[in-house]
């Protein structure tokens, strides 16, 4: 039995092709994934991300708990509403999940974790929280909409209660705020400006309808995936999982090594990996030949070894195929990918591929 978000009827009414995504009935697209992709890059689109798991933490030792639980350091957070992207690691340094943590105050935090990892995340959080006397509350009664694109905030602003509207428009990137019983954050997963808006489930359909009436295009998981790939944002389960460390997943920047005496789960394993060297590269690839790079294709680095594409696809903005890949250590910028037995040429490029509507790589 699949679960439905509070916006299921809205999706059907908008002509969605519904697919099972981690146990949820979710919209893949509403007719054309490519047009939805372009709408977000050039105008505004809205995604139902209510399947994601919102968890609130409360307790006198909540800050201490998160400094131990997460590889990034919540001590960096001192302004209420500020967000931090981080990995949650196991003792071996593998990634249990990636998540966003919002700082409310030193005793209150909000986490947004992935839908597919919900159960193991909650189990891990509860297990680790025991010794820190921190309360873990899943907020399943909340819905979340991501309004993304250069026009997203402007078009969504009239939906925000007038009392909070100006403050919401003044939010800096990666900051959020309470707006009555809503929560508005200038975050997203597309490489475009926009908001993620958390609302009580019962209010989600009306907000959705108003956004569509304002000209915001309903956009499905398909476009969400090509947008995040262009923005070179990792997808849990594809680009990293419990078997690889953030250092081999392009997420070394999210690991807070300082202060050196902060003990966090997985630290010892990461330090060992870093000291040993030979850490695999995590790179962006551009296909120079015709074809499409796909997840799990074999990458051949002549004279060095082999790697694998972790996320591959067609970039609607660039009009070429791009990918994220985990490759052997070494200094090289040309490789080949095995597509149905043929070796095609790919170039290693600096990511992101696309950001704020602009192509950022040489094509």
């Amino acid at each position, binding site marked *: 039995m699949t679960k439905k978000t509070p916006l299921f009827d809205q999706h059907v009414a908008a002509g969605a092709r519904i697919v099972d995504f981690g146990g949820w009935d979710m919209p*893949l*697209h509403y007719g*054309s*994934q*490519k047009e939805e*992709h372009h709408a977000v890059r050039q105008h505004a689109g809205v995604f139902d991300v209510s399947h994601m798991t919102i968890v609130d933490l409360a307790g006198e030792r909540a800050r201490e708990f998160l400094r131990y639980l997460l590889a990034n350091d919540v001590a960096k957070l001192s302004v209420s509403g500020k967000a931090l992207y981080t990995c949650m690691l196991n003792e071996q340094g593998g990634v249990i999940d990636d998540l966003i943590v919002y700082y409310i105050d030193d005793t209150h935090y909000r986490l947004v974790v992935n839908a597919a990892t919900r159960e193991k995340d909650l189990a891990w959080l509860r297990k680790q929280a025991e010794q820190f006397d921190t309360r873990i509350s899943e907020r399943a009664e909340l819905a979340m909409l991501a309004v993304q694109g250069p026009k997203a905030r402007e078009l969504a602003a009239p939906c925000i209660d007038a009392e909070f509207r100006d403050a919401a428009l003044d939010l800096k990137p990666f900051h959020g705020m309470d707006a009555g019983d809503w929560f508005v954050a200038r975050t997203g997963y597309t490489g475009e400006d926009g908001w993620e808006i958390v609302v009580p489930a019962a209010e989600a359909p009306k907000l959705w309808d108003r956004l569509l009436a304002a000209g915001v295009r309903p956009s499905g998981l*398909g476009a969400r995936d*090509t947008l995040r790939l262009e923005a070179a944002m990792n997808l849990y389960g594809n680009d990293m999982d419990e078997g690889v460390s953030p250092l081999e997943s392009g997420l070394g920047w999210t690991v807070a090594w300082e202060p050196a005496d902060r003990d966090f789960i997985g630290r010892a394993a990461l330090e060992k990996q870093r000291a040993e060297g030979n850490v695999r590269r995590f790179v962006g690839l551009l296909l120079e030949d*015709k*074809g*499409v790079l*796909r997840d799990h294709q074999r990458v051949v680095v002549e004279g060095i070894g082999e790697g694998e594409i972790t996320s591959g*696809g*067609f970039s*609607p903005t660039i009009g070429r*195929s791009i990918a994220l890949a985990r490759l052997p250590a070494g200094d090289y910028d040309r490789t080949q990918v095995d597509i*149905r037995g043929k070796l095609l040429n790919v170039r290693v490029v600096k990511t992101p591929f696309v950001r704020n509507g602009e192509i950022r790589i040489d094509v």
Partner: protein
Amino acid sequence: MSELPGDLQYTSDHEWLRREEDGNVTVGITDHAQSALGDLVYVELPEVNQEVENGGDMAVVESVKAASDVYAPIGGTVVAVNDALSDDPEAINNDPYGEGWIVKLEPSGDEGELLSPDAYQALLDDIDS
């Protein structure tokens, strides 16, 4: 759901065949197939003169979502491929039974059971229900 062209034959893999006057057979994928695949971004075509077996790999169509094999609906020799698809794969989305044709085969006689428009429509009705 649009009506199926009545002059074509179909397969349960959602391909269509048109028997041309010169004896060759034009092959493409159905409207249902293109719709399920979504926006096409790349088509890998066989070589002209390549021989294909009934049910064997013949082409690959790739959408933004995934790559899908197109199987040869009958055995034969490839006599023409739709080169226009390399620059305009979306022709398959826009006109699956016309501009979006994929290959022309010269039949070898290696054929199995093909579906009439009514039989294919019944199969689609089953999928939808």
